[in-house]
Structure formats: structure tokens, C-alpha cells
């Protein structure tokens, strides 16, 4: 598969980190 244009693709690599941060935040809120 062609790889060079892939290098310019925009991918949200950090998404899992943000998902986790969001979860932790709302879990803490849920616990009060």
C-alpha cells in the first residue's frame, strides 16, 4: 500500500487518552 500520503493523514491518535480522561472526570462526578 502507498505509505507517503499516509504520513500526511490526520488521525486522532490521542483519542483513547482523551476518552479515558473524560471517563475519569465523569466517574468522579458520579461518585459525588
Amino acid at each position, binding site marked *: 500500500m502507498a505509505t507517503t500520503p499516509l504520513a500526511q493523514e490526520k488521525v486522532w491518535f490521542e483519542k483513547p487518552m*482523551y476518552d479515558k*480522561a*473524560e471517563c475519569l*472526570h*465523569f466517574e468522579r462526578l458520579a461518585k459525588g
Partner: protein
Amino acid sequence: MASGTLYTYPENFRAYKALIAAQYSGAKVKIAEDFIFGETNKSDAFLKKFPLGKVPAFETADGKYITESNAIAYYVANEQLRGKTDIERAEIVQWFGFADSEILPASCAWVFPLLGLMQYNKQTIEHAKDDVKKALTALNSHLLTRTYLVGERLTLADISVATTLLHLYQYILEPSLRKPYQNVNRWFQTVIYQPESINVIGAFKLADKTLEYDP
């Protein structure tokens, strides 16, 4: 008429999509009352229905399970919201993608550190600001001659994109920062101040001042 139970924590912008759509369509969407985020969604019973344990999650009245906020919103919507022609429906899918790939990453990268959810990194924030600018510029251009994103009336595209912009408009886009995006501002307020949106979100307040980083 669609009906079912929505599992979510409160003030979840993703859940707002389906809840606002249901206001328009009349779908009966009940928010699960005994749902405790961090507990219920890790239970065996929940994971059996929704294996990834994420919310919002929707259980239809006839026992089907739907995840992904745009999908739930689609299910509880009506024909008007879903788009009346193939091109409209394709455009709605396009705006779902735009919200999730052009707005959400940048919004999270900018807002989360200021809310203390993630570590503050100046370079990350600067990139996020650029990405937000690109997305809003494209949106502003599109809305120059349009009241709504797709067609002549409000659709799921407007609901999805507007709810994804809530954090930016609540915490970041103080008047001077939102000034370049007058068409977006007009459209956003049109969507968010509809009675159907107010019934779900409440009286939304645009940012007076950008949230500041507090170490």
C-alpha cells in the same frame, strides 16, 4: 415511533444529540434513572448489551442495542432530521464526520487542559487553536448563504455539529475569539436556542471570557 432507554451521565453533549432529536420527532426516550457512570457501565449486565461499556448507549423498546451518539440520534429522529433525499442524507453523514474529526479532537485538546482533565501543554494547545480556526473558518464559509447545514431546515447535521461545539462556545469562544465566525455564531444560536434544544440543554450561556489555565 422510536422509543427506548438512554444510558448516559448527566450533561453529556453526545447524549444531547439523541435527546434533542427526540424532542423534534416525539420519540419516547427515557433516561435510565439508576445508571451510575463508572459502575453500571462496568457491570456484566451492561457489558452484555454494550460490550465496549461506553455511553451514550440506547436500548430500544423492542430489545435492540445501539451505541455511537450519531446512530442513536438517527434512530430516534424523524424523516426531516434524517434528510429527505440521498444527497441530504449523505451530507448529514458528512457533517457527522466533520464534527467528529475536525471539531472534537481540537475542542478536547483545547478545553480539557483548562478544565484540569489533562496535562497542560502549550504546543498542544497552539495546534488545537489552529485546528479550531480551520474548522470554524470552513463552517463559517459554508454558512454564509445558509441557515442550516443541510437543506432548508434543521437536520441531524445541525444537532450533531452544534452539540460538538458546546464546550468551545461555553469555555473558550469569548466575544473577541468568536467574532470572526459570525455565520457560525448566528447558526449555533439558532440551533441551541430552539425550544427543543433548551428543553434538553437548558439556557446555554456563551462564554464571556476564555477559561484560564490554573495550575
